[in-house]
């Protein structure tokens, strides 16, 4: 049975440590754009930890909310691309085909989650920083849209390995960079079509919600709401 890659983000576990953000930069050759470009709103973070304030001193509350590409089943970014650069893979990913992208930026406008990032210039690394680049991932050049791929290079590698060993993929045998680095296990990645996978089990939790679910984009990322001490059985 085909895989369907999905993720669960447990907002009750997320501590806002942002290990996922750096992990993503390291894994996916995401360039640092520098102060000037960052100031112009061009910083690239395929995964970001949003935070929202509620209430004022002395009772302020903060909600952390990691946001990455939701890999929607009904992705608004896909139909609008005139060249099929943004399309849906059989395994349920919104793939961004860099070489096919002509840079209309329509997909980025259509995406309600604002998780698509554009290469306004050619990226650059002060030597020898380029030695950190991951050879399994393309370095995107100017005029190309890019976004979270669920670390497709890791998926491919694992699938090829499993195929070579003539076996099925095991749950947790590989992981996206962000989920791998998440100390509090707020991010769980896996195959939604495998009923025994942790991600499948968690996404059916009664705390589960979809980000902007009302838009009907059918995300493959499920958010688990924060619990409260009161409703959990204590003492």
């Amino acid at each position: 049975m085909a895989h369907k890659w999905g993720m669960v983000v447990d907002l009750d576990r997320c501590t806002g440590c942002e290990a996922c953000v750096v992990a993503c930069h390291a894994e996916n050759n995401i360039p640092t754009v520098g102060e000037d470009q960052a100031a112009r709103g061009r910083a690239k973070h395929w995964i970001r930890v949003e935070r929202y304030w509620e209430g004022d001193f002395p009772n302020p509350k903060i909600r952390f909310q990691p946001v990455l590409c939701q890999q929607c089943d009904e992705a608004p970014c896909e139909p609008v691309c005139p060249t099929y650069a943004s399309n849906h893979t059989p395994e349920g990913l919104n793939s961004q085909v860099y070489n096919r992208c002509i840079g209309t930026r329509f997909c980025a406008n259509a995406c309600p989650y604002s998780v698509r990032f554009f290469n306004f210039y050619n990226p650059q690394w002060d030597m020898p920083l380029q030695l950190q680049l991951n050879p399994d991932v393309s370095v995107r050049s100017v005029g190309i849209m890019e976004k979270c791929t669920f670390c497709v290079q890791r998926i491919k590698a694992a699938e090829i390995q499993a195929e070579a060993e003539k076996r099925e993929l095991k749950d947790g045998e590989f992981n996206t960079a962000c989920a791998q680095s998440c100390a509090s296990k707020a991010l769980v990645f896996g195959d939604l079509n495998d009923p025994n996978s942790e991600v499948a089990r968690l996404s059916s939790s009664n705390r589960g919600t979809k980000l902007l679910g009302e838009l009907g984009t059918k995300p493959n990322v499920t958010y688990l709401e924060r619990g409260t001490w009161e409703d959990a059985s204590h003492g």
Partner: protein
Amino acid sequence: MRIPMGWRKWLLMILAGVSVWALLEIVLPRQRMRASGPPAYVTTGVFTPAHPTAAAAVKDFLDIHPEHPVQPIAYTHTVHLAKGLPCTFCHVGVDQGPEARIPGVTVCMSCHQSIATDRPEIKKIAAYKARGEEIPWVRVYNYSQSAHVRFNHAPHIRAGVDCAMCHSDMTKQTTAERKVDLNMGFCINCHTQKKVSIDCETCHY
């Protein structure tokens, strides 16, 4: 009936001149600026996927590349293959992962320590070794950086795809020539015949 011109002609010509000059001003100075693109041999201290020159950009766009680059050593595949050496003897890794090693001086000398040491080409290799230098082979088969292809040899080898399928018959070549044009059509055709995935993300990510 002729259109009366006179000073207007000159005005127009000057304007045109100025604008052309402005265009060149923007384009040319940066042309002369030192650039660096992969492979990062240029030591400007910055690495970018951009083409070093406009010409390089155009070549890449039109997929122009040398068919038979000149190699530092006049290696002959014919001879070695005739001797029954398997490809993997030198091109290690081709059946394990994405890349195939291009053998270095160490590999060559492992045999030519003793074999055919008197041949001029072998002497050259020995000289490299003596200087502690690697042979600067020129890459023959490669994908344009802008193709964003992540090709992986191993699965193809496992699927029993013959090396000659993409690299043509090496037994008939001295130094490698780019006989097969590895464009996307070539890949797609084979993938469709063999009924394997032609989903974009099979190769592009």
